[in-house]
């Protein structure tokens, strides 16, 4: 599995993502500049990390969705390639139509930087194989616009097709309003594409891959990808 990280101007979690990918993959990911029109040869996994692409002065991710590289990313996804979008990366994937829905302002209207807990909805994907279904793990939120929104028909379809990847939960795994920190529809923290090859999520598993930083709850996601 060969990974590449797309760098848009204003992206700022590419270093965190590099550390996480390197620790699971054993090799450093390729850095892909947003003005490039194609992906480097042999890339299996495209990662769009967190940050504030183009400052996010417009809707988050709206500018980046129109960068030249996004056409290649969409083609890669359409051909069944793996794509992981975290935080701003998730926003960019929804803005570019690779994943459905949108990320609105947090319900509190404030930036949130804190631990959260995620409940794994299905463990039979390349991203979640090293968790088990129903398991709760800890992750880190750091965003102002992570409130997942889609119309009811889309939400129903996501649930019917079992494409919800993670939901915000209490530490013990209960889906409850007080655990849904940003106010997301149906507590959705991350979703898959229909072929289960694209994952977008708001929390940062890449920031919990080292016990020194407070835990390794995010590491199974990268370990699973490395083995895919």
């Amino acid at each position, binding site marked *: 599995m060969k990974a590449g990280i797309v760098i848009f*101007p*204003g992206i*700022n*979690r590419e*270093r*965190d993502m590099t*550390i*996480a990918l390197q620790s699971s993959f054993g090799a450093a990911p390729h850095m892909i500049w947003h003005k490039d029109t194609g992906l480097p040869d042999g890339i299996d996994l495209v990662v769009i990390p*967190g*940050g*504030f692409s*183009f*400052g*996010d*002065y417009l809707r988050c991710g709206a500018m980046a969705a129109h960068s030249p590289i996004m056409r290649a990313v969409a083609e890669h996804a359409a051909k069944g390639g793996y794509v992981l979008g975290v935080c701003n990366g998730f926003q960019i994937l929804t803005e570019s139509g690779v994943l459905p829905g949108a990320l609105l302002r947090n*319900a*509190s209207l*404030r*930036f*949130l*930087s*804190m*631990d*959260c*807990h995620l409940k794994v909805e299905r463990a039979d994907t390349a991203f979640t194989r090293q968790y088990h279904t129903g398991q709760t793990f800890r992750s*880190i939120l*750091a965003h*102002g616009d992570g409130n997942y929104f889609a119309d009811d028909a889309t939400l129903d379809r996501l649930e019917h097709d079992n494409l919800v990847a993670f939901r915000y939960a*209490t*530490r013990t795994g209960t889906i409850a*309003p*007080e*655990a*849904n*920190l940003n106010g997301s529809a149906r507590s959705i923290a991350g979703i898959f594409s229909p072929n289960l090859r694209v994952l977008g999520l708001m929390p*940062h598993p*890449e*920031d919990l*891959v*080292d016990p*020194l*930083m*407070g835990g390794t709850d995010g590491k199974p996601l990268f370990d699973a990808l490395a083995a895919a």
Partner: protein
Amino acid sequence: MQTQVNESLARSFGLSAQEYNQMLAIMGRIPSFTELGVFSVMWSEHCSYKSSRVWLKQLPTKAPWVIHGPGENAGVVDIGDGLAAIFKMESHNHPSFIEPYQGAATGVGGILRDVFTMGARPIANLNALRFGSPDHPKTKRVVDGVVRGVGGYGNCVGVPTVGGEVNFHPSYDGNPLVNAMTVGIARKDRIFLSAAAGIGNPVVYVGSKTGRDGIHGATMASTEFTADSEDKRPTVQVGDPFTEKLLIEACLELMATDAIVAIQDMGAAGLTSSAVEMAGKGGVGIELDLDQVPARETGMSAYEFMLSESQERMLMVLRPDREQLARDIFQKWDLDFAIIGHITETGHIVVRHHGVTEVGIPLAPLNDQAPLYTRPTVDTPKQERLNPARVEDRLGLSRALEKLVGCPDLCSRAWVWDQYDSTVGGQTVKRPGAADAAVVKLEGLKRALALTTDCTPRYCLADPETGGAQAVAEAWRNLTAVGARPLAITDNMNFGNPEKPEIMGQFAAAIRGMAAACEALDFPVVSGNVSLYNETEGKGILPTPTIGGLGVLEDAASAVGLALPPWLDIVVIGATVGWLGQSLWLREVHGREDGAPPPVDLAAEKTNGDFVRTHILNGTIRACHDVSDGGILVALAEMAMASGIGARLWTHPRDIPGHAFWFGEDQARYLVAVPDHANFTRIAEAAGIPAVRLGTSGGQDLTLPDGGTISIAALREAHNRFFPAWMNDGTKKDTP
């Protein structure tokens, strides 16, 4: 259409009659309007430090690990592994009152530039915030705007905000303090300085375009506020953290080459101060053509170009054969890049605009003959020591504790931290609230930095010399309490109007106290900033010499936090006499702010701290918290709330009243959790270190020596209540 320069115009620009005459003597003629602008900002308090320089010289600035002390854009210290830490703290007080969001945001942006301009990648931000009384009608708006501004800028540039402090006092009602600190890392053989060199070398402008914002911000920061100060909003700059992020990446990319001769950010007084300082430090001249400066709007005058404080701009002197290489890098990042002049041998700053010479000033006298005042000082009268036996124990232990942990100055700051990205970069070992100092690891290495900001302004008002020493000692203690070796500090001196002898007396005494502490603790000052005239309608702030401390841990894994583990013995290190003067207990329980503040025994600070650090690093101490505001019992409650583990406490020594023992604020003390108190206290006593066992951890309650019991859940409830309720905020919090 040039305005005629005369003494009355100069006075309206903030120059005194004497300074006006000095300027005429240097120029030998009536200066142009733009030249007057240059003199007035360069000689403003903000840029010239004319009231503070004589005192700042007393501060110790040297140690074997200091690479660059005060005088550069930021201080530089050797942290091992061939690396240097570059750091500084700077105030953005005046703009933050006028326009809280942008004032705070651009404060963060400015201090980031001071650090990356020297070649460092910023790895951490901290901020020390002081606000007016929560009851004052404006405070809520200022808190909201400042916190959003700090977060808005820091979160976007992707530098984690890992620590700081928030306090309230009515003296800040009209003058909140926003002191922002940035820490960066560079290879110690790749430090970039600002002294220009190389006759004929190009002077290059990069970053954002210049607009009419922030004109004369430095002058605004050098006067008191009056009722109409909010009309000064146009003097506040507007921040663009996205451009700053690009500027960081582009500058660091260029700094990996050999293209840069000198570089400086355009901060206060913009193009004027960066050009004057770079050429002045290099002993050369500089010639600028304003027609080449990227402008955001049309029709700007030379005066406006030179005085604009538009953000996210840098000035560089390049090697002439590296122009294209540099241009390519900035174009890649979509940033403006313009050659706006060159270095000359004239020793003058010459500025042309539309073919007309607007400025021609000799640099040496502009810098060397800058005003320097030894203003009159009056000592603060000493207050009497408060006898604790004569202060009634009004609430008992458990009710007083609940009140203290819930008061605005001691309650949980989570509402604030939760709006700052503290984990970006993936190296944050101790996040806000986890330990006495933030701990940030260096990427790819075991080594980590410990960072803190500290000051106890109420001590400084009561006795500025003791307060100055205490601020330095507490910073040193907080670094020590995580196991770090303290290396150096940056200071941010926030005071009132220096033309008042009692204010200048506070300043001089605080410096004396700080100097003594720096000397005794081998903890030099390597950078700093002075903010005077923090007064509104003649009412000054509490003297606030904020200290930003930096220490190093050879192994990030050896850092300890303050969360209390179960089934350990709790021991207090350091002598307790039960000092209640100026304590928070006295203020919150009795509504009194009086008495002498606790004395600072620097020898005890050193020996107690060295002992604690040794026993953290050898693994004996499992958790550690310095004893400060609120005394032992508050410190213990904070440790218990952090982990959810309670404790059972023994009775206190009989010769001290209970409330004084548990809430007194004697200095040089630490609470530590150790597995075997008998062995530990024996070693301490053998080393001459006071060590008293207070109790044992375990359970979910705090069982107090007077028989009272308070659950950790109840303590947390009291602790977490204030901020969300006060801000009327519906933010939900999942308690970990």
